[in-house]
Protein backbone atom coordinates (compact mmCIF):
# COMPACT_ATOMS: atom_id res chain seq x y z
CA UNK A 1 0.00 0.00 0.00
CA UNK A 2 1.14 3.53 -0.77
CA UNK A 3 1.77 5.51 2.43
CA UNK A 4 -0.10 8.76 3.03
CA UNK A 5 1.20 11.73 5.00
CA UNK A 6 -0.18 15.10 6.09
CA UNK A 7 1.80 17.95 4.53
CA UNK A 8 -0.50 20.93 5.07
CA UNK A 9 -3.11 22.04 7.58
CA UNK A 10 -5.78 24.72 7.58
CA UNK A 11 -8.54 25.66 10.01
CA UNK A 12 -11.19 28.30 10.44
CA UNK A 13 -12.64 27.83 13.91
CA UNK A 14 -14.41 29.70 16.69
CA UNK A 15 -10.96 30.17 18.25
CA UNK A 16 -9.29 31.78 15.23
CA UNK A 17 -8.75 31.72 11.50
CA UNK A 18 -5.62 29.68 10.87
CA UNK A 19 -4.52 26.28 12.13
CA UNK A 20 -1.60 27.62 14.16
CA UNK A 21 -3.57 30.56 15.56
CA UNK A 22 -6.33 28.16 16.60
CA UNK A 23 -3.85 25.72 18.11
CA UNK A 24 -2.11 28.38 20.21
CA UNK A 25 -5.41 29.58 21.63
CA UNK A 26 -6.48 26.00 22.31
CA UNK A 27 -3.24 25.30 24.19
CA UNK A 28 -3.80 28.51 26.16
CA UNK A 29 -7.18 27.11 27.32
CA UNK A 30 -9.20 29.80 25.54
CA UNK A 31 -12.79 29.24 24.44
CA UNK A 32 -14.47 30.33 21.22
CA UNK A 33 -18.00 30.04 22.56
CA UNK A 34 -20.07 33.20 22.95
CA UNK A 35 -23.59 34.60 22.98
CA UNK A 36 -25.42 34.62 19.65
CA UNK A 37 -26.11 38.25 18.78
CA UNK A 38 -26.37 38.23 14.98
CA UNK A 39 -29.88 36.75 14.91
CA UNK A 40 -32.85 36.45 17.21
CA UNK A 41 -32.65 33.59 19.72
CA UNK A 42 -35.33 34.85 22.11
CA UNK A 43 -37.59 31.89 21.25
CA UNK A 44 -34.78 29.29 21.15
CA UNK A 45 -33.64 27.71 24.45
CA UNK A 46 -29.95 27.51 23.40
CA UNK A 47 -28.52 31.00 22.93
CA UNK A 48 -24.79 30.42 22.52
CA UNK A 49 -22.44 29.00 19.87
CA UNK A 50 -18.85 28.70 18.78
CA UNK A 51 -18.62 31.54 16.26
CA UNK A 52 -15.71 32.32 13.95
CA UNK A 53 -14.14 35.65 15.01
CA UNK A 54 -14.44 38.09 12.10
CA UNK A 55 -12.38 41.12 11.20
CA UNK A 56 -8.95 42.12 9.98
CA UNK A 57 -5.80 41.18 11.76
CA UNK A 58 -3.97 38.20 13.16
CA UNK A 59 -6.28 35.24 13.73
CA UNK A 60 -9.42 37.03 12.57
CA UNK A 61 -11.43 35.82 9.60
CA UNK A 62 -12.00 38.07 6.62
CA UNK A 63 -13.94 36.28 3.87
CA UNK A 64 -12.71 38.75 1.25
CA UNK A 65 -9.19 37.36 1.62
CA UNK A 66 -10.48 34.13 0.08
CA UNK A 67 -13.55 34.92 -2.05
CA UNK A 68 -14.41 37.98 -4.14
CA UNK A 69 -17.48 39.96 -3.13
CA UNK A 70 -19.04 39.08 -6.46
CA UNK A 71 -18.63 35.36 -5.77
CA UNK A 72 -19.79 35.57 -2.17
CA UNK A 73 -23.46 35.56 -3.21
CA UNK A 74 -22.86 32.27 -5.03
CA UNK A 75 -21.99 30.41 -1.84
CA UNK A 76 -23.31 29.99 1.64
CA UNK A 77 -20.92 30.52 4.56
CA UNK A 78 -19.92 26.87 4.90
CA UNK A 79 -18.42 27.02 1.41
CA UNK A 80 -16.54 30.23 2.20
CA UNK A 81 -15.08 28.64 5.34
CA UNK A 82 -14.17 25.51 3.40
CA UNK A 83 -12.40 27.50 0.68
CA UNK A 84 -10.49 29.44 3.33
CA UNK A 85 -9.34 26.31 5.18
CA UNK A 86 -8.31 24.72 1.86
CA UNK A 87 -6.41 27.89 0.85
CA UNK A 88 -4.55 27.78 4.15
CA UNK A 89 -3.76 24.06 3.93
CA UNK A 90 -2.51 24.32 0.35
CA UNK A 91 -0.36 27.37 1.16
CA UNK A 92 1.04 25.55 4.20
CA UNK A 93 1.90 22.48 2.13
CA UNK A 94 3.58 24.51 -0.61
CA UNK A 95 1.80 22.35 -3.22
CA UNK A 96 0.75 24.43 -6.21
CA UNK A 97 0.06 22.11 -9.15
CA UNK A 98 0.53 23.84 -12.50
CA UNK A 99 1.14 21.11 -15.08
CA UNK A 100 -1.77 19.01 -16.38
CA UNK A 101 -0.18 15.94 -14.80
CA UNK A 102 0.10 17.49 -11.33
CA UNK A 103 -3.38 19.01 -11.49
CA UNK A 104 -4.91 15.69 -12.52
CA UNK A 105 -3.11 13.94 -9.64
CA UNK A 106 -4.59 16.34 -7.07
CA UNK A 107 -8.16 15.91 -5.85
CA UNK A 108 -10.55 17.35 -3.29
CA UNK A 109 -12.79 15.66 -0.71
CA UNK A 110 -14.36 18.23 1.59
CA UNK A 111 -17.72 17.38 3.12
CA UNK A 112 -20.31 18.99 5.28
CA UNK A 113 -22.88 17.62 7.68
CA UNK A 114 -25.71 19.91 6.76
CA UNK A 115 -24.71 22.27 3.97
CA UNK A 116 -26.33 25.59 3.18
CA UNK A 117 -29.09 25.75 5.76
CA UNK A 118 -29.16 29.58 5.96
CA UNK A 119 -29.65 29.94 2.20
CA UNK A 120 -32.25 27.17 2.11
CA UNK A 121 -34.11 29.00 4.84
CA UNK A 122 -33.96 32.31 2.91
CA UNK A 123 -35.16 30.71 -0.32
CA UNK A 124 -38.00 28.99 1.55
CA UNK A 125 -39.14 32.40 2.84
CA UNK A 126 -39.29 33.76 -0.72
CA UNK A 127 -41.18 30.78 -2.07
CA UNK A 128 -43.62 30.71 0.83
CA UNK A 129 -44.46 34.34 0.17
CA UNK A 130 -45.12 33.70 -3.51
CA UNK A 131 -41.84 35.22 -4.69
CA UNK A 132 -40.56 32.19 -6.59
CA UNK A 133 -39.22 34.46 -9.33
CA UNK A 134 -36.92 36.10 -6.77
CA UNK A 135 -35.09 32.83 -6.02
CA UNK A 136 -31.47 33.34 -7.07
CA UNK A 137 -30.01 31.25 -9.90
CA UNK A 138 -27.15 30.68 -7.46
CA UNK A 139 -29.40 29.28 -4.74
CA UNK A 140 -28.83 25.59 -5.50
CA UNK A 141 -25.03 25.76 -6.03
CA UNK A 142 -24.75 28.00 -2.97
CA UNK A 143 -26.02 25.26 -0.67
CA UNK A 144 -24.98 21.95 -2.25
CA UNK A 145 -22.54 20.17 0.01
CA UNK A 146 -20.17 19.04 -2.75
CA UNK A 147 -19.75 22.64 -3.90
CA UNK A 148 -16.99 23.14 -1.33
CA UNK A 149 -14.97 20.54 -3.22
CA UNK A 150 -16.17 22.04 -6.50
CA UNK A 151 -15.24 25.62 -5.62
CA UNK A 152 -11.83 24.60 -4.23
CA UNK A 153 -11.06 22.62 -7.38
CA UNK A 154 -12.01 25.59 -9.58
CA UNK A 155 -9.99 28.07 -7.55
CA UNK A 156 -6.83 25.97 -7.46
CA UNK A 157 -7.11 23.99 -10.70
CA UNK A 158 -7.34 20.60 -8.99
CA UNK A 159 -8.53 18.11 -11.59
CA UNK A 160 -8.23 14.83 -9.69
CA UNK A 161 -11.09 13.07 -7.87
CA UNK A 162 -13.73 15.55 -6.75
CA UNK A 163 -15.87 14.11 -4.02
CA UNK A 164 -17.75 15.02 -0.87
CA UNK A 165 -18.70 13.13 2.25
CA UNK A 166 -22.00 13.59 4.10
CA UNK A 167 -22.07 11.65 7.36
CA UNK A 168 -23.31 14.20 9.89
CA UNK A 169 -20.76 14.72 12.65
CA UNK A 170 -18.39 12.05 11.28
CA UNK A 171 -18.04 13.88 7.96
CA UNK A 172 -14.60 15.44 8.51
CA UNK A 173 -13.05 12.19 9.72
CA UNK A 174 -14.64 10.13 6.95
CA UNK A 175 -13.46 12.65 4.34
CA UNK A 176 -9.85 12.43 5.52
CA UNK A 177 -10.01 8.64 5.80
CA UNK A 178 -11.62 8.17 2.40
CA UNK A 179 -9.25 10.63 0.75
CA UNK A 180 -6.25 8.82 2.19
CA UNK A 181 -7.57 5.61 0.65
CA UNK A 182 -7.89 7.29 -2.75
CA UNK A 183 -4.19 8.09 -2.51
CA UNK A 184 -3.37 4.56 -1.30
CA UNK A 185 -5.25 3.11 -4.26
CA UNK A 186 -3.53 5.42 -6.72
CA UNK A 187 -6.54 7.52 -7.73
CA UNK A 188 -4.59 10.60 -6.68
CA UNK A 189 -1.17 11.59 -5.31
CA UNK A 190 -2.45 14.57 -3.35
CA UNK A 191 -5.88 15.21 -1.80
CA UNK A 192 -7.24 18.29 -0.09
CA UNK A 193 -9.58 16.77 2.50
CA UNK A 194 -11.74 17.93 5.37
CA UNK A 195 -15.09 19.33 6.38
CA UNK A 196 -16.94 22.63 6.55
CA UNK A 197 -20.02 23.76 8.43
CA UNK A 198 -22.01 26.93 9.03
CA UNK A 199 -25.41 25.96 10.36
CA UNK A 200 -25.56 28.40 13.26
CA UNK A 201 -28.75 30.08 12.09
CA UNK A 202 -32.30 30.17 13.42
CA UNK A 203 -33.40 27.02 11.65
CA UNK A 204 -30.26 25.09 12.65
CA UNK A 205 -30.45 26.16 16.30
CA UNK A 206 -34.18 25.45 16.47
CA UNK A 207 -33.67 22.00 14.94
CA UNK A 208 -30.90 20.84 17.25
CA UNK A 209 -32.64 22.39 20.24
CA UNK A 210 -35.80 20.45 19.32
CA UNK A 211 -33.81 17.21 19.31
CA UNK A 212 -32.78 18.12 22.89
CA UNK A 213 -29.11 17.90 21.97
CA UNK A 214 -27.94 21.41 22.91
CA UNK A 215 -26.69 22.88 26.16
CA UNK A 216 -29.17 25.36 27.65
CA UNK A 217 -27.96 25.77 31.24
CA UNK A 218 -25.00 28.03 30.52
CA UNK A 219 -26.48 30.76 28.32
CA UNK A 220 -25.11 33.39 30.73
CA UNK A 221 -21.65 31.84 30.94
CA UNK A 222 -21.00 30.64 27.39
CA UNK A 223 -17.35 29.60 27.85
CA UNK A 224 -18.44 27.13 30.54
CA UNK A 225 -21.15 25.42 28.48
CA UNK A 226 -19.08 22.79 26.70
CA UNK A 227 -17.77 20.57 29.48
CA UNK A 228 -17.23 16.99 28.29
CA UNK A 229 -17.25 14.33 31.05
CA UNK A 230 -18.02 16.96 33.68
CA UNK A 231 -20.96 16.16 35.93
CA UNK A 232 -22.50 19.53 35.06
CA UNK A 233 -22.67 18.89 31.30
CA UNK A 234 -26.06 19.25 29.66
CA UNK A 235 -25.60 19.03 25.90
CA UNK A 236 -23.37 20.17 23.07
CA UNK A 237 -22.72 23.69 21.82
CA UNK A 238 -23.11 24.41 18.12
CA UNK A 239 -19.99 25.58 16.31
CA UNK A 240 -19.06 26.73 12.82
CA UNK A 241 -15.95 26.69 10.69
CA UNK A 242 -13.87 24.35 8.58
CA UNK A 243 -10.79 22.18 8.70
CA UNK A 244 -8.65 20.90 5.85
CA UNK A 245 -5.53 18.86 5.47
CA UNK A 246 -3.36 18.26 2.45
CA UNK A 247 -2.79 14.52 2.22
CA UNK A 248 0.04 13.32 0.07
CA UNK A 249 1.62 10.08 -1.01
CA UNK A 250 4.77 9.68 1.08
CA UNK A 251 7.33 9.41 -1.75
CA UNK A 252 5.68 12.34 -3.56
CA UNK A 253 6.02 14.47 -0.42
CA UNK A 254 9.61 13.37 0.17
CA UNK A 255 10.61 14.02 -3.43
CA UNK A 256 9.57 17.65 -3.24
CA UNK A 257 11.01 18.15 0.24
CA UNK A 258 7.62 18.85 1.81
CA UNK A 259 7.21 19.36 5.53
CA UNK A 260 5.54 16.23 6.97
CA UNK A 261 3.37 16.62 10.06
CA UNK A 262 2.40 12.97 10.51
CA UNK A 263 1.36 9.84 8.65
CA UNK A 264 -2.24 8.66 8.28
CA UNK A 265 -1.68 5.06 9.36
CA UNK A 266 -5.18 3.88 10.18
CA UNK A 267 -8.82 4.43 9.36
CA UNK A 268 -11.73 2.47 10.76
CA UNK A 269 -15.48 2.72 10.28
CA UNK A 270 -18.62 1.21 11.70
CA UNK A 271 -22.37 1.57 11.93
CA UNK A 272 -24.33 1.38 15.17
CA UNK A 273 -27.52 -0.05 13.61
CA UNK A 274 -29.27 1.21 16.71
CA UNK A 275 -30.96 4.64 16.70
CA UNK A 276 -31.15 7.79 14.54
CA UNK A 277 -29.63 10.13 17.13
CA UNK A 278 -28.59 8.17 20.24
CA UNK A 279 -25.39 6.11 20.33
CA UNK A 280 -25.69 2.41 21.10
CA UNK A 281 -25.64 2.24 24.93
CA UNK A 282 -22.79 -0.25 25.02
CA UNK A 283 -20.58 1.94 22.80
CA UNK A 284 -20.22 -0.92 20.39
CA UNK A 285 -20.12 1.29 17.28
CA UNK A 286 -17.34 3.52 18.56
CA UNK A 287 -15.51 0.49 19.89
CA UNK A 288 -15.52 -1.22 16.50
CA UNK A 289 -14.49 1.96 14.62
CA UNK A 290 -11.47 2.36 16.91
CA UNK A 291 -10.63 -1.35 16.76
CA UNK A 292 -10.83 -1.35 12.98
CA UNK A 293 -8.64 1.76 12.75
CA UNK A 294 -5.96 0.25 15.00
CA UNK A 295 -6.07 -3.00 13.04
CA UNK A 296 -5.74 -1.07 9.78
CA UNK A 297 -2.80 0.83 11.29
CA UNK A 298 -1.10 -2.29 12.62
CA UNK A 299 -0.85 -0.45 15.94
CA UNK A 300 -1.37 -2.07 19.35
CA UNK A 301 -3.60 -0.24 21.86
CA UNK A 302 -0.67 0.36 24.23
CA UNK A 303 1.14 2.32 21.50
CA UNK A 304 -1.55 5.03 21.42
CA UNK A 305 -0.48 8.14 23.33
CA UNK A 306 -3.37 10.48 22.67
CA UNK A 307 -7.07 10.12 21.87
CA UNK A 308 -8.95 13.15 20.57
CA UNK A 309 -12.41 12.13 21.69
CA UNK A 310 -15.67 12.80 19.94
CA UNK A 311 -16.74 14.01 23.44
CA UNK A 312 -19.52 16.44 22.63
CA UNK A 313 -20.54 17.21 26.23
CA UNK A 314 -23.84 15.33 26.07
CA UNK A 315 -24.95 13.41 29.17
CA UNK A 316 -25.16 10.07 27.31
CA UNK A 317 -22.45 10.15 24.66
CA UNK A 318 -19.38 11.15 26.66
CA UNK A 319 -19.49 8.21 29.04
CA UNK A 320 -20.41 5.72 26.33
CA UNK A 321 -17.30 6.72 24.38
CA UNK A 322 -15.20 6.59 27.54
CA UNK A 323 -16.49 3.07 28.23
CA UNK A 324 -15.60 1.96 24.72
CA UNK A 325 -12.06 3.34 25.08
CA UNK A 326 -11.64 1.55 28.40
CA UNK A 327 -12.79 -1.77 26.98
CA UNK A 328 -10.65 -1.53 23.86
CA UNK A 329 -7.49 -0.28 25.53
CA UNK A 330 -7.74 -2.27 28.77
CA UNK A 331 -4.88 -1.43 31.13
CA UNK A 332 -3.36 0.84 28.48
CA UNK A 333 -6.33 3.20 28.84
CA UNK A 334 -4.87 4.66 32.02
CA UNK A 335 -1.58 5.45 30.29
CA UNK A 336 -2.92 7.48 27.36
CA UNK A 337 -4.15 11.06 27.41
CA UNK A 338 -7.64 11.70 26.06
CA UNK A 339 -9.24 15.10 25.63
CA UNK A 340 -12.19 16.75 23.97
CA UNK A 341 -11.29 19.93 22.12
CA UNK A 342 -15.01 20.57 21.60
CA UNK A 343 -14.79 22.03 25.10
CA UNK A 344 -13.09 25.03 23.47
CA UNK A 345 -14.48 25.09 19.93
CA UNK A 346 -18.00 23.80 20.40
CA UNK A 347 -19.21 21.10 18.04
CA UNK A 348 -18.48 21.95 14.40
CA UNK A 349 -20.63 19.02 13.18
CA UNK A 350 -19.32 18.07 9.72
CA UNK A 351 -16.13 20.07 10.26
CA UNK A 352 -15.44 18.63 13.72
CA UNK A 353 -13.53 15.55 12.57
CA UNK A 354 -11.39 17.70 10.29
CA UNK A 355 -10.29 20.29 12.84
CA UNK A 356 -9.76 17.49 15.36
CA UNK A 357 -7.53 15.67 12.86
CA UNK A 358 -5.55 18.92 12.60
CA UNK A 359 -5.24 19.01 16.42
CA UNK A 360 -4.20 15.36 16.49
CA UNK A 361 -1.36 15.82 13.99
CA UNK A 362 -0.24 18.98 15.82
CA UNK A 363 -0.18 17.03 19.10
CA UNK A 364 2.24 14.62 17.41
CA UNK A 365 4.24 17.39 15.74
CA UNK A 366 4.58 19.61 18.83
CA UNK A 367 4.63 16.99 21.63
CA UNK A 368 1.73 18.50 23.57
CA UNK A 369 -1.87 17.41 24.18
CA UNK A 370 -4.68 19.99 24.19
CA UNK A 371 -6.93 20.37 27.23
CA UNK A 372 -10.53 19.53 28.05
CA UNK A 373 -11.88 22.84 29.31
CA UNK A 374 -14.36 23.05 32.20
CA UNK A 375 -13.65 19.51 33.38
CA UNK A 376 -13.72 20.40 37.08
CA UNK A 377 -15.94 17.66 38.47
CA UNK A 378 -15.51 14.52 36.35
CA UNK A 379 -18.20 11.85 36.22
CA UNK A 380 -17.44 8.82 38.33
CA UNK A 381 -16.65 6.72 35.26
CA UNK A 382 -13.63 8.94 34.52
CA UNK A 383 -11.64 7.64 37.48
CA UNK A 384 -8.09 6.66 36.54
CA UNK A 385 -8.22 8.31 33.11
CA UNK A 386 -6.12 11.29 32.06
CA UNK A 387 -8.69 13.53 30.38
CA UNK A 388 -6.28 16.50 30.33
CA UNK A 389 -8.52 18.72 32.47
CA UNK A 390 -8.31 22.50 32.11
CA UNK A 391 -4.71 22.80 30.89
CA UNK A 392 -2.66 21.49 28.00
CA UNK A 393 0.08 19.06 28.86
CA UNK A 394 3.46 18.40 27.35
CA UNK A 395 3.96 14.76 26.47
CA UNK A 396 5.55 12.92 23.61
CA UNK A 397 2.86 11.78 21.19
CA UNK A 398 3.90 9.24 18.62
CA UNK A 399 0.46 7.82 17.86
CA UNK A 400 -2.83 9.76 18.07
CA UNK A 401 -6.35 8.48 17.46
CA UNK A 402 -9.27 10.77 16.63
CA UNK A 403 -12.92 9.72 17.01
CA UNK A 404 -15.98 11.09 15.24
CA UNK A 405 -19.51 9.75 15.63
CA UNK A 406 -22.59 10.98 13.81
CA UNK A 407 -26.38 10.92 13.78
CA UNK A 408 -27.56 7.79 12.03
CA UNK A 409 -25.06 5.74 14.02
CA UNK A 410 -22.09 6.38 11.77
CA UNK A 411 -18.61 6.16 13.29
CA UNK A 412 -15.10 6.91 12.07
CA UNK A 413 -11.70 6.74 13.73
CA UNK A 414 -8.41 7.98 12.30
CA UNK A 415 -4.95 7.00 13.49
CA UNK A 416 -1.98 9.30 12.90
CA UNK A 417 1.66 8.52 13.63
CA UNK A 418 4.84 10.56 13.72
CA UNK A 419 7.18 10.09 10.74
Amino acid sequence: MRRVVVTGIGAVTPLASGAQATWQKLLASQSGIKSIEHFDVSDIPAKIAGLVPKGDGEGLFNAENHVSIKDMKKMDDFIVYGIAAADQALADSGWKPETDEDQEATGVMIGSGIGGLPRISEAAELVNHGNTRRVSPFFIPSCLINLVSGQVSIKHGLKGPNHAVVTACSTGAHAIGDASRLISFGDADVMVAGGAEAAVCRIGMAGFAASRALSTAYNDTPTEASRPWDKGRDGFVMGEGAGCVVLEEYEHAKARGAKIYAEVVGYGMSGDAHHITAPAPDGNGGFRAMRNALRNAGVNPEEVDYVNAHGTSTPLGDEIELGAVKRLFGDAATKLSMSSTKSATGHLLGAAGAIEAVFSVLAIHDGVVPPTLNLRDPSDACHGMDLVPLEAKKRKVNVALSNSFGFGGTNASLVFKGV
Partner: protein
Amino acid sequence: MSDVADRVKKIVVEHLGVEEDKVTENASFIDDLGADSLDTVELVMAFEEEFGCEIPDDAAEKILTVKDAIDFIEKANA
Protein backbone atom coordinates in the same frame (compact mmCIF):
# COMPACT_ATOMS: atom_id res chain seq x y z
CA MET B 1 -27.32 59.86 -19.81
CA SER B 2 -30.77 58.86 -18.67
CA ASP B 3 -31.66 57.94 -15.13
CA VAL B 4 -32.45 54.41 -16.28
CA ALA B 5 -28.99 54.04 -17.84
CA ASP B 6 -27.33 55.15 -14.61
CA ARG B 7 -29.28 52.71 -12.51
CA VAL B 8 -28.70 49.83 -14.95
CA LYS B 9 -24.96 50.49 -14.95
CA LYS B 10 -24.86 50.63 -11.17
CA ILE B 11 -26.53 47.24 -10.93
CA VAL B 12 -24.13 45.76 -13.46
CA VAL B 13 -21.12 47.09 -11.55
CA GLU B 14 -22.42 45.69 -8.27
CA HIS B 15 -23.48 42.28 -9.55
CA LEU B 16 -20.59 41.52 -11.86
CA GLY B 17 -17.90 43.18 -9.74
CA VAL B 18 -16.48 45.10 -12.73
CA GLU B 19 -14.97 48.58 -13.02
CA GLU B 20 -17.47 51.29 -13.81
CA ASP B 21 -15.66 52.50 -16.95
CA LYS B 22 -15.93 49.01 -18.50
CA VAL B 23 -19.71 49.21 -18.40
CA THR B 24 -20.26 51.00 -21.68
CA GLU B 25 -23.60 50.87 -23.48
CA ASN B 26 -22.31 48.40 -26.05
CA ALA B 27 -20.61 46.12 -23.55
CA SER B 28 -21.82 42.52 -23.72
CA PHE B 29 -22.46 40.95 -20.32
CA ILE B 30 -20.89 37.66 -21.31
CA ASP B 31 -18.20 38.65 -23.82
CA ASP B 32 -16.98 41.89 -22.24
CA LEU B 33 -17.95 41.82 -18.59
CA GLY B 34 -17.15 38.23 -17.60
CA ALA B 35 -20.67 37.10 -16.80
CA ASP B 36 -21.79 33.49 -17.18
CA SER B 37 -25.32 32.36 -17.97
CA LEU B 38 -26.32 32.25 -14.30
CA ASP B 39 -24.98 35.78 -13.77
CA THR B 40 -27.20 37.05 -16.59
CA VAL B 41 -30.28 35.42 -15.05
CA GLU B 42 -29.47 37.14 -11.78
CA LEU B 43 -28.88 40.47 -13.52
CA VAL B 44 -32.29 40.33 -15.12
CA MET B 45 -33.81 39.59 -11.70
CA ALA B 46 -32.00 42.62 -10.29
CA PHE B 47 -33.37 44.80 -13.10
CA GLU B 48 -36.90 43.56 -12.38
CA GLU B 49 -36.47 44.38 -8.72
CA GLU B 50 -34.99 47.83 -9.32
CA PHE B 51 -37.51 48.93 -11.93
CA GLY B 52 -40.58 47.07 -10.72
CA CYS B 53 -41.19 45.49 -14.10
CA GLU B 54 -41.45 41.90 -15.26
CA ILE B 55 -39.02 40.69 -17.90
CA PRO B 56 -40.35 37.46 -19.46
CA ASP B 57 -37.84 34.71 -20.24
CA ASP B 58 -38.06 35.15 -24.01
CA ALA B 59 -37.31 38.88 -23.65
CA ALA B 60 -34.55 38.20 -21.12
CA GLU B 61 -32.80 35.96 -23.61
CA LYS B 62 -32.43 38.91 -25.96
CA ILE B 63 -30.88 41.19 -23.36
CA LEU B 64 -27.22 40.65 -24.13
CA THR B 65 -25.71 44.11 -23.69
CA VAL B 66 -26.07 47.06 -21.35
CA LYS B 67 -27.93 48.94 -24.11
CA ASP B 68 -30.37 46.03 -24.60
CA ALA B 69 -31.28 46.29 -20.92
CA ILE B 70 -31.71 50.05 -20.95
CA ASP B 71 -33.86 49.93 -24.09
CA PHE B 72 -36.10 47.20 -22.75
CA ILE B 73 -36.65 48.93 -19.43
CA GLU B 74 -37.29 52.35 -20.96
CA LYS B 75 -39.87 50.81 -23.29
CA ALA B 76 -41.50 48.77 -20.51
CA ASN B 77 -41.75 51.76 -18.20
CA ALA B 78 -42.82 54.23 -20.90
